[in-house]
């Protein structure tokens, strides 16, 4: 797990949403895929598509990047040894009333210092209290994403499944 990539992702998405872009691409890594899918589950971004260097086609009505239609079937190009180097993740970003839905991202764990939270600490954080190095979630809609042995999840989902893990990013 490369934490510098995570920091790059955070600052890139912050820059992109400040510029009010509808579409952006990030390097294709396993952690990025998991994190972006977690964002999508939370409704922070509209779509995640793996494609080449050129952007995938737009959705006819919604405008976000979508799967290519090959022979009438929406499908994505399979990843092979020859094209894996050119694969990127294309994210459709959301805006509501001229404000980005994906707010400010900040990496919690750094390359130099990884921060883990157990369920007791997670409970404190979700109640709005500070736990070790993690500030409580005190704003409406604030999210914390953790990687656990059951996958990458939002903090509330972690607590539901009663698992702790490594804290990745905080979305405000």
């Amino acid at each position, binding site marked *: 797990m490369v934490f510098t990539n995570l920091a790059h992702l955070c600052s890139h998405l912050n820059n992109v949403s400040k510029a009010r872009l509808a579409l952006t691409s990030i390097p294709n890594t396993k952690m990025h895929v998991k994190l972006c899918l977690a964002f999508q589950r*939370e*409704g*922070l971004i509209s779509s995640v598509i793996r494609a080449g260097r050129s952007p995938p086609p737009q959705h006819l009505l919604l405008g976000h990047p979508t799967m290519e239609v090959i022979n009438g079937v929406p499908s994505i190009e399979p990843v092979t040894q020859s094209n894996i180097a050119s694969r990127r993740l294309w994210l459709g970003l*959301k805006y*509501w*009333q001229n*404000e980005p*839905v994906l707010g400010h991202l900040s990496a919690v764990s750094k390359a130099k210092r990884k921060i883990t939270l157990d369920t007791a600490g997670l409970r404190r954080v979700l109640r709005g209290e500070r736990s070790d190095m993690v500030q409580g979630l*005190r*704003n*409406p*809609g*604030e999210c914390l994403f953790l990687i656990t042995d059951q996958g990458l999840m939002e903090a509330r989902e972690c607590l539901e499944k009663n698992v702790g893990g490594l804290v990745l990013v905080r979305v405000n």
Partner: protein
Amino acid sequence: MSVTRPVRCLFCRFSRPTYAVPRVPRRQFHPSPAPLSNDQNPKDPKTQEDKMAGKKLLVDIERDAKPEDFKPLTQKEKEYLATVYSPKQMESIEAGEAAIDPKDLAEQFAFQRGPLRHHYADDFASIEPGVDKHVRAPISNTDYNAKLKSEEDFIEDFGRFFAEMPEDVSASDWVRFVEGLRVTHGKPENELAPHSSLVPDLFQPGESLEQEEPKEPRPEVVTTGKVKEGEGMDPTLRKLLMATGYTESFVNSLKTKVLVRRSVVNQTRLGKIRKASVLAIAGNGKGLLGIGEGKSAEFVDAVTQARYRAIRNMQPIPRYEQRTIFGDVRGKVGAVELILMNRPPGFGLRCQHLIYEMCLAAGIHDLAARVERSRNPMNTVKAAYEALMSQRNPEEIARARGRKLVDVRAVYYSGRAY
């Protein structure tokens, strides 16, 4: 309302001009009854006209009230009241009636004034749309065996009309026939005044379900206009009222406070020009807050300027449970950086005096604040205002994300947390 009504409408079409008021209730698109006259402005030409026409003004009615106008309850009225009230209550009603002398009533009779007054004169004998609850026709009016008349029945009806037609037939005979023409067999009430569990239509003023016959129009009452507002009022205040649409009493009820006052100097080649600069806040204690700056040669003028500008700038501030803020918010103006933090009920306002005053004016009761870096008073107020306005509404967040957000406190206390 009823399926038969539109059909009746169709048949009643010719009879319309014979009635002063429309017989078929028509939906009003606003719930307030039309005022009897414009009682706001004495210079209104309509009021003047009414005066010239010799119509009674409210003042005249009040002055001309005589003891004979206040008659004791008749036996019939008492019998009716006895159906509604218990014998004990009836005793107290009678005792109350006996205790008040009609002479006193006549002397002290006055129409209600002030904000709770009626904007119309009402004898309370008829249904007013939007004011009164509707009287529904009794369920016994319903006839479940009613059947629509067939074509032959109609032919028979028309044939009877032509057969029984008098020699000198007039249009009114025809109108009367069409009015009386039934479209169903069965109980007549089922067609004319049917019971419906649906919400009844709103009526025209003065119309009721019970009385289909048009009533005599009520005596028109003209209320006098009150003393013209703004007589002897400060011109700046009048301007403020005109710009904002607030009433004078509302403006007086606002909480305003001067937070920053200082003397500023403009250096010109002729010398220093001193001026007073003031920053004031205004709020209604229920979520409205505004800040205003004023500058003038005199402090007094600067203060009024700042106060009125604050009132003009008042904007609603989101309040969680009408006591604290949504989340922790940050504000930054110049070198002043501050953070306002929401707190549980009963926490109080634990913050510095400027933010305390702002919360007091806005109606925030639980809050903590920290002012970092610079603590310039003027910029602190502005930064706090900016922070309060930058709150995010959870409902908006939910809509933006397309996910459901639930306020757990509201669920736990079933929406009665405040």
